[in-house]
């Protein structure tokens, strides 16, 4: 059964040390959207998070109501972020919709947030009036930006607001050397590894990724990306997955990626 062992290790079935089992997780990429609220009610979500050992979670939702419900149910876990659109279907169009600005203003006046995002924007999208105004609103309040998009858009965000703290969703789905390049260029950019599994391979951690983690141990974090309601039931599996590949990194780097980097990012106002 030599064969299966490799993959089991990746799946987290073989936790390599007792420490790995307990590694607390800061899940930096979660959504709790309008449909999820009806399928997986807040108390069930909170149980899922606690069972998985997720101590903190950066949550943004299409239709902010979900985030607020969760925050009320587990204020110790939920770190609220404000998504600039109310329906996931608006991913490609929201930057051309001026009503986004009113929506953001209303929400920011009413609730406390640590971040604006996760928002989708590629290339010149950043120059639209809506996104420029949104960045200005984040700047006034010194909020983190959780950006899903390409390097070009990332560059434009930092050109607009050079001191911005940006969490680059999915590490831009870029290869590790390109992610490392972005982190080198911008000291206030962090990268989440949501929906990626390329850093974990049968021997533990992919070599190129290991180099990036060792070079920038303070800048990466994990995330489940609960983009459809069913995916809340993936949180436990994902936490196990994270622990299993992190167990192949030095303990201090593993702890940072699992939890501490996200806390430090939020504190770096």
């Amino acid at each position: 059964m030599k064969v299966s062992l490799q993959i089991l290790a990746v799946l987290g079935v073989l936790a390599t040390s007792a420490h790995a089992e307990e590694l607390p997780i800061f899940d930096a990429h979660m959504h709790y959207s309008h449909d999820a609220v009806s399928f997986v009610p807040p108390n069930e979500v909170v149980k899922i998070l606690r069972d998985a050992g997720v101590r903190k979670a950066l949550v943004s939702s299409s239709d902010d109501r979900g985030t607020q419900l969760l925050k009320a149910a587990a204020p110790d876990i939920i770190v609220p972020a404000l998504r600039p659109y109310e329906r996931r279907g608006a991913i490609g169009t929201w930057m051309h919709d001026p009503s986004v600005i009113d929506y953001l203003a209303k929400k920011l006046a009413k609730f406390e947030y640590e971040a604006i995002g996760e928002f989708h924007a590629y290339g010149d999208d950043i120059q639209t009036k809506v996104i420029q105004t949104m960045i200005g609103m984040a700047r006034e309040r010194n909020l983190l930006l959780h950006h899903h998009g390409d390097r070009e858009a990332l560059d434009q965000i930092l050109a607009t607001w050079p001191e911005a703290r940006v969490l680059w969703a999915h590490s831009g789905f870029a290869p590790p050397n390109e992610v490392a390049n972005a982190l080198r260029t911008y000291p206030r950019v962090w990268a989440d590894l949501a929906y990626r599994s390329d850093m974990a391979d049968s021997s533990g951690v992919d070599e190129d990724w290991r180099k990036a983690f060792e070079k920038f141990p303070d800048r990466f974090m994990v995330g489940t990306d609960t983009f459809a309601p069913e995916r809340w039931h993936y949180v436990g599996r994902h936490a196990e997955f994270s622990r299993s590949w992190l167990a192949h990194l030095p303990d201090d780097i593993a702890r940072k990626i699992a939890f501490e980097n996200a806390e430090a990012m939020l504190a770096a106002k």
Partner: protein
Amino acid sequence: MIARTAFLASFALSSSALACPTPPDATQLIPEADHAPAAYAEMNTPPLSAPFAMLVTFCDPAQKIEALMFDALMPAHRHGMNFTVDVSKIADNRFEVSNIVFHMPGLWELQFGAEFAGRAYTYIAEVQVK
């Protein structure tokens, strides 16, 4: 997409200038760095959603490639393969990559990583799967 094609074309020119006896129907691998040894892959037309193999050859006898990594993805659909491949060295500077499965028709981008004396060269190539 246009940018990438132009990029590929520019490299295709520069690498064909290298002195490598590339068989006529082989696929030239496009190196990321200028000084990388020329390399090519030989394969039959990739079948759809069935395993196949390719032979990868590096042309510079002065550099003996120690290990080869292979991966592939579909840029249009942002997904890769559902399997990892097997790589075996069959001679100096010659590797067989087997159990490659392209499970969808369309353009696949092949990525090669070659290790030589602690250095890593990366190459890409493209194949159209029908």
